[in-house]
């Protein structure tokens, strides 16, 4: 194997960062990059769809939309208009464990966006009129992402089985339609007051600035905001009942069968967390590209599939999943796919993995982190995902080292731990007339 040395990859994979905490509990991370006079500000709140209860699903995401509707001093829609007038761009996202707001703008406008972001951290105005219209927008968003897309509907049903109905991660972030229709100004206001506070947020600034400059500005604008009591975040330590389960969706809009299987898996935070880094390496060597085991076996050699991949994401406050995703070739039965995937899993469990394939996967993962430094957006996203799920800056910084330390034996142990029948949901998307 040639290519860049491990030492070089490890050196470049580490991103320069500095962090500190204001007196009111706001955590601040600065990721300096001086290639262009541009900055990205991200404020993440440690709250997301998995912090909701059934009956109020979608409230975190709906609130994210309402955060653009103004405060006492900034009118509805003005936030984005002001950013836009400076040539900047802004947006927001909601996931199971995190809600994030971000702007990218000329470096000398950092204070302006900080002032406005701090303002809506404490002074959001929720008006009935705006809520009524925005609810329709949210329902259109759900139609676009979920109701119009058969695979999204199947994913929603599969998560209900894997993580449990009406439980965290088993309920969709965008919310169930009936819930979104019921959410009131009171519900959103209560959620806002409960979770939006400096001591439940992280400010990340990437780009052309310094930790000293960010500290001064953060003290000035976020510093005066009062700390508020924030309750503990709860996540179940187990998954859905009566696993394994099989979820089938036959849909007139589907022309090709798709086969998926997800196993409940530990994250960096929940379950047997010592396996998390090894599970990442496992997913890369098994199913991240066309040289991975699954693709080679199912697509290239047996020609049973058009694509085959595996995936794992450890940045979760609760349990997460290790997934397989296969698109069968025309004429391949689902039974043949299941047998072929089963063979690959058995082979790996029987024979383990080679030091060479582990090293290849690790090098590619490290190179990926070097490449990711080429963009201002990726750093905040990465730190945001870890810091919103109970992790630390040191953990993000040590990630390359921890990935590099994973051994073939650890990969095997992780596979043994996770690939258990009583932790699996198999899902099948088929044309309306049934599985081929």
């Amino acid at each position, binding site marked *: 194997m040639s290519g860049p040395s491990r030492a070089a990859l490890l050196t470049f994979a580490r991103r320069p960062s500095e962090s500190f905490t204001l007196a009111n509990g706001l955590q601040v991370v600065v990721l300096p990059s001086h290639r*262009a006079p*541009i900055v990205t500000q991200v404020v993440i709140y440690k709250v997301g769809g998995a912090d909701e209860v059934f009956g109020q699903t979608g409230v975190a995401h709906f609130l994210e939309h309402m955060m653009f509707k103004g405060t006492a001093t900034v009118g509805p829609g003005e936030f984005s208009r002001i950013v836009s007038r400076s*040539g900047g*761009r802004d947006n927001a996202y909601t996931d199971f464990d995190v809600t994030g707001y971000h702007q990218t703008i000329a470096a000398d406008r950092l204070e302006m966006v900080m002032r406005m972001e701090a303002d809506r951290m404490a002074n959001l105005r929720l008006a009935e009129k705006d809520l009524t219209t925005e609810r*329709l927008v949210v329902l*259109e968003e759900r139609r*676009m992402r979920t109701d119009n897309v058969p695979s999204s509907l199947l994913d929603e049903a599969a998560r209900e089985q894997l993580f449990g109905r009406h439980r965290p991660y088993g309920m969709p972030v965008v919310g169930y339609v009936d819930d979104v229709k019921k959410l009131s100004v009171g519900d959103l206001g209560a959620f806002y007051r409960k979770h939006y506070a400096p001591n439940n947020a992280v400010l990340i600034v990437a780009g052309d600035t310094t930790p000293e400059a960010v500290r001064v500005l953060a003290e000035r604008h976020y510093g005066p905001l009062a700390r508020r009591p924030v309750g503990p975040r709860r996540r179940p330590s187990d998954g859905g009942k009566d696993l394994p389960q099989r979820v089938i969706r036959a849909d007139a809009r589907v022309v090709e069968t798709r086969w998926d299987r997800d196993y409940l898996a530990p994250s960096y935070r929940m379950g047997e967390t010592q396996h998390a880094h090894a599970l990442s390496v496992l997913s890369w060597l098994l199913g991240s590209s066309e040289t991975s085991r699954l693709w080679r076996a199912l697509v*290239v050699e047996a020609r049973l599939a058009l694509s085959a991949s595996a995936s794992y994401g450890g940045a979760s406050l609760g349990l997460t999943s290790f997934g397989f995703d296969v698109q069968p070739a025309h004429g391949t039965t689902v039974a043949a796919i299941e047998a072929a995937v089963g063979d690959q899993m058995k082979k790996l469990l029987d024979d383990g993995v080679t030091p060479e394939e582990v090293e290849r996967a690790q090098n590619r993962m490290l190179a990926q982190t070097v490449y990711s430094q080429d963009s201002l957006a990726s750093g905040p996203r990465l730190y945001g995902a870890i810091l919103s799920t109970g992790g630390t800056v040191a953990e993000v910084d040590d990630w390359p080292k921890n990935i590099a330390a994973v051994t073939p034996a650890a990969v095997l142990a992780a596979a043994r731990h996770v690939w258990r029948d009583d932790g699996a949901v198999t899902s099948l998307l088929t044309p309306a007339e049934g599985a081929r």
Partner: protein
Amino acid sequence: MKLRQAVASLLALVLSALPLAAAGAVDIKEVTTPLGIKAWLVEDKSVPVVTMSFAFDGGSASDPEGQKGVTSLMAILLTDGAGALPAPAFKQRSEDNEVWIGFGASVDRVSGTLRVLSASRDEGFELLRLALTEPRFDDDMIEQRRAQAISSLDQSEQRPGAVATRALMGAMFAGHPYATETSGLRDSLKTLTAAEIKARAATLLSRTGLIVAAVGDIGEAEFARQLDRVFGGLPAGPARPELPDWTPPARGRSIAIERPVPQSTLQIAMPGVSRNDPDWYAAFVMNHILGGGGLTSRLAAEVREKRGLAYGVSSGLRNYRKASLLVISTATANEKVADTLRVIRAEVARLRTDGVTEQELADAKTYLIGALPVSLDSSATIAALLYSMQVDGLPRDYLAKRAKLLGAVTAADVRRAARRLLRDDVAFTVVVGKPVELPIEP
């Protein structure tokens, strides 16, 4: 830190209204190699990465008769084995060196990207040379990619957005090669032969009309050497034959296509304005006010913010070598299709009749002038910009002139562009879904 200075000077134009002469030129170098290959380069050492974007003249619009999809399939197959390396070995060697190479086709071009860590530059350029000059086109890979292409075409038939785009292109460009999508047709994909794919590569992969842009950790001298290595072995070839001119249809119409979905996709297209038309900047500003830029446009205000009819609504100018379009698109619940169309048409008519306010004009200009430098936050976006400037035939010092050109647009210019472009009588409307009321004719 050359890139930094370049972006800083662009931002200075926006934010402090410096005299334009003080902005200075952006440091895009033109490199000409010993073999005569020309490329643009921005050297930047802040991240140990090199990104190169390049394109060959000629795309799917010149697919030979009966071979629709051959250019796209050929482009995908370029990374499926080259020289002595069959596909798995080629991919393994790319991965082991952290090299990423990808190709794709559009109606006008075959384009490619190389991304490499600077430590393995040499290997990256070597693999790219192999892919371009000694592609294998092995039968097993042709069969694999053919099956994947047909499957993805079949699946796209069920995605309202893809169906709408296909119908719109088919109607607007009826009788012109642009009417067929780059991905091709099922029947022709099925019958394409290895010989046809190889012939397509031999025709298109030529130094004539080649466009190259690179950004990152590489100096001029080495870049020139690598360019000759990668592209020097390609034939010079004759210039590509011109595509036929496009005559916009004299009358528009509405097309409804049923799909069993709760939300319908709407697209409205009109003839646009070419990149070198004197009205381009006025049309660019007008489009931004109508439906560009996220939540701040008129369409976003009326369709989304005031009425909640859609999650996303936008308009955009699209330019092809032989055609230009203005396309408005959104998606709304089946029950609200007629309402949404009514609101969009009313906004289009209002802009055409009344023009824009001075405040709207000023806001649009500061955004459009400032957004470009703010978007230059990665070597990939910078390489993409250098690439598109060459596609559009713009000079290297264009970035310094752009703010002035946009700044000169007046409300009267915008109104003229609106009157010229926003014409109901030539608009094509496509609705894909299960609308409760059929869309009313304009």
